[in-house]
């Protein structure tokens, strides 16, 4: 059983619950206190000691139910010893087999696996599969492509080779029995396949997810497939959570050891300035104010979509976000993004301003007319777009004024640096007025860019 609990810890890690060695020690201590007989109490105990949030509790609860729904190798039953002592088991089985398998069976010469299958002892078969799975170290399974090799390893460990020999022999001597054996073998293969699938669900989830996320993080946002959009949104949410955790620390930090002389004197005026009560200096930090201007034309739209999703899920970190979308003219989209689900919001934005050919000049003019006065020296302005303005007037002078009024002006361009300045790209002209220009085509680059912006306020 101890072994089982350890296997459960591995399964829990697979389910995404972080279990450190210290935690597993604590959990073992707790389990030793409450014992194993009452499954409900055991479940509560493991949930209390291992899970550290409501999400983890749900995941762990599911994992617990899945894990303990599989047949465990039960030591107290004689059948479970089959693998260790085939001879003994074969003898005990042969007596049982003859009685329930019908008339005079010539099963004397058969191997243990054949005996077991013919006797149709479900418990014994389940136990044998479980212990063979242990021998084949099923808990090391990581990828779905490994299913075949683990299945065959388990079957080998159960003695498939011997069974094949038996089958060959029987086909010659007793075709009817051979037919039955073949049928049960099919059943066994299926059972093993199920066991492996369950093992994959238990142990491999984390690894598979990591791999998929890694690929997704480095895929160009503009060209991801439709079916991946939902996964990408989940990934962006995950990135947002990570950024929140990193940057939502308190903004106020006491400057310990620096006496605030003025406040101390004022506070102690009643005692003639003798400093009974001391006051210390504090330092306030601003939270980021972000103003985002996103191009939603053509190929940039997808990147803008994810960028807006990321920025708007950073409530705890960012004080104030206003976002604007443009292609040929510019509108404010903050309210749409705040009040609707990401999919609906994006659809509405696209119907309002999307699909036009982009005109950076007139969009900048729109911005200057209506919103220029919202810029403060604390604001970071983020421009997201490819700066391809269809050879229209780029109005870089407005961008210069934006840059002068704000704390920082960051330009994120989904195109590679090589393409900047070629064709109708106005990037070099705009770049002179930006505090920072960077390429931003994948989720990873997006995360870095936003992380850097937020970090300048810390």
């Amino acid at each position, binding site marked *: 059983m101890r072994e089982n609990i350890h296997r459960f810890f591995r399964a829990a890690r697979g389910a995404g619950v972080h279990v*450190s060695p210290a935690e597993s020690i604590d959990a073992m201590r707790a389990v030793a206190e409450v014992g194993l*007989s009452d499954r409900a109490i055991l479940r509560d105990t493991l949930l209390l000691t291992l899970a*550290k*949030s409501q999400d983890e509790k749900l995941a762990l609860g599911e994992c617990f139910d899945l894990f303990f729904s599989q047949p465990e190798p039960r030591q107290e039953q004689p059948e479970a010893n089959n693998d260790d002592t085939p001879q003994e088991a074969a003898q005990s089985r042969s007596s049982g087999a003859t009685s329930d398998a019908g008339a005079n069976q010539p099963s004397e010469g058969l191997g243990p696996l054949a005996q077991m299958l013919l006797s149709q002892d479900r418990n014994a078969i389940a136990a044998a599969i479980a212990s063979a799975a242990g021998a084949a170290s099923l808990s090391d399974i990581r990828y779905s492509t490994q299913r075949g090799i683990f299945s065959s390893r388990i079957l080998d460990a159960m003695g498939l080779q011997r069974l094949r020999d038996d089958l060959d022999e029987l086909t010659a001597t007793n075709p009817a029995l051979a037919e039955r054996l073949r049928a049960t073998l099919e059943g066994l293969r299926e059972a093993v396949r199920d066991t492996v699938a369950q093992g994959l669900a238990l142990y491999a989830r984390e690894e598979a997810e990591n791999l998929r996320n890694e690929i997704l993080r480095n895929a160009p946002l503009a060209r991801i497939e439709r079916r991946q959009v939902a996964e990408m949104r989940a990934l962006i949410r995950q990135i947002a959570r990570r950024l929140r955790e990193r940057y939502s620390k308190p903004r106020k930090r006491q400057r310990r050891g620096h006496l605030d002389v003025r406040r101390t004197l004022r506070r102690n005026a009643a005692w003639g300035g003798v400093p009974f009560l*001391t006051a210390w200096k504090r330092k306030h930090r601003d939270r980021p104010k972000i103003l985002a201007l996103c191009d939603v034309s053509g190929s940039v739209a997808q990147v803008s979509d994810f960028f807006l999703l990321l920025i708007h899920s950073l409530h705890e970190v960012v004080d104030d976000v206003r976002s604007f979308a443009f292609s040929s003219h510019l509108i404010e989209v903050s309210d749409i993004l705040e009040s609707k689900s990401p999919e609906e919001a994006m659809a509405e934005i696209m119907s309002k301003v999307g699909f036009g050919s982009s005109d950076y000049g007139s969009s900048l003019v729109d911005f200057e007319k209506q919103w220029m006065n919202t810029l403060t020296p604390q604001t970071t302005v983020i421009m997201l777009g490819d700066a391809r303005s269809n050879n229209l007037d780029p109005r870089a002078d407005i961008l210069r004024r934006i840059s002068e009024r704000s704390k920082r002006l960051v330009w994120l361009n989904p195109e590679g640096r090589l393409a900047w300045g070629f064709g109708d790209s106005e990037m070099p002209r705009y770049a002179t007025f930006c505090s920072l220009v960077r390429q931003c085509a994948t989720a990873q680059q997006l995360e870095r860019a936003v992380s850097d912006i937020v970090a300048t306020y810390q």
Partner: protein
Amino acid sequence: MAEQKASTAIEAVESGLAAQGYIASRQIATAVYLSQRIEKPILVEGPAGVGKTELAKAVAAWRGKKMIRLQCYEGLDEAKALYEWKYAKQLLYTQILKDKLGEVLGGARTLHAALEQLHDFGDVFFSKEFVEPRPLLQALEHPGGCVLLIDEIDKSDAEFESLLLEILSDFQVTIPELGTVFAITPPTVILTSNSERDLGDALKRRCLHLHIGFPEQRLEERIVESRVPGISQTLRRQMVGFIHEIRSLDLKKLPSVSETIDWARVLVLLQASELDTEIVKDTLNVLLKYEADIEAAQPQITTFIAKAARSNVFG
């Protein structure tokens, strides 16, 4: 055998808490039992008003121990949570003892000798008498142990969390001038959090993590029964059923157990025998705390009452 003992012990916890008027679910009772056996603090999370603070009070009352409460807020530091030097007292004593000091030091001829003598006094002004123990130190020094409630830990700063780590894992505190203070009897520590911000992993690792959500209908009925004994059974069922319907709405703040109890008291005061649309409309402000929520719930009242009554018949 140990296993038998564990399940009966958990039942004992349940009935012990029930005697104090706290109806605990099995999971809560298991957490309380485990925290006692493996000496770990319990971190209780959940929405406001589901009885997180109440749990600590009930545990203290059941064990017959004193409860020491530390309310957390932004800017809470060790001077207010752990200990503080009685600065004013130190100043006052030096003023009063000025003459005495002068007398003692008067014998010294040189400044150096005076300094020597001053050293001989040792750390007179940095001794136990001048330490003002704050809740955490009080809890450690309390003879016979106590229940320490660290309320709304998520309101405090991240630095304060780190300060707690030493106390939570080893039940000790280090004061630079005095040395390490060990707990005489390890206190039962209960931390509560409204999940306003994510707590650090280091803190979570040291605790049993207990999440208290909204209770099931049966459990909530029992809670109302124990807290508001005057209420009739039909009304109790109806109102709890009604509240469960309300919780299915998308509201700013869902009514929690404390609101259920308040509402039950109000209904008893108004001598209602069963729910009807009028009385619910008049008292809805006990349940819902935002104007927008009340407006959202208003049109549903009649349906919810009917639903609650129906579930009453079949339940």
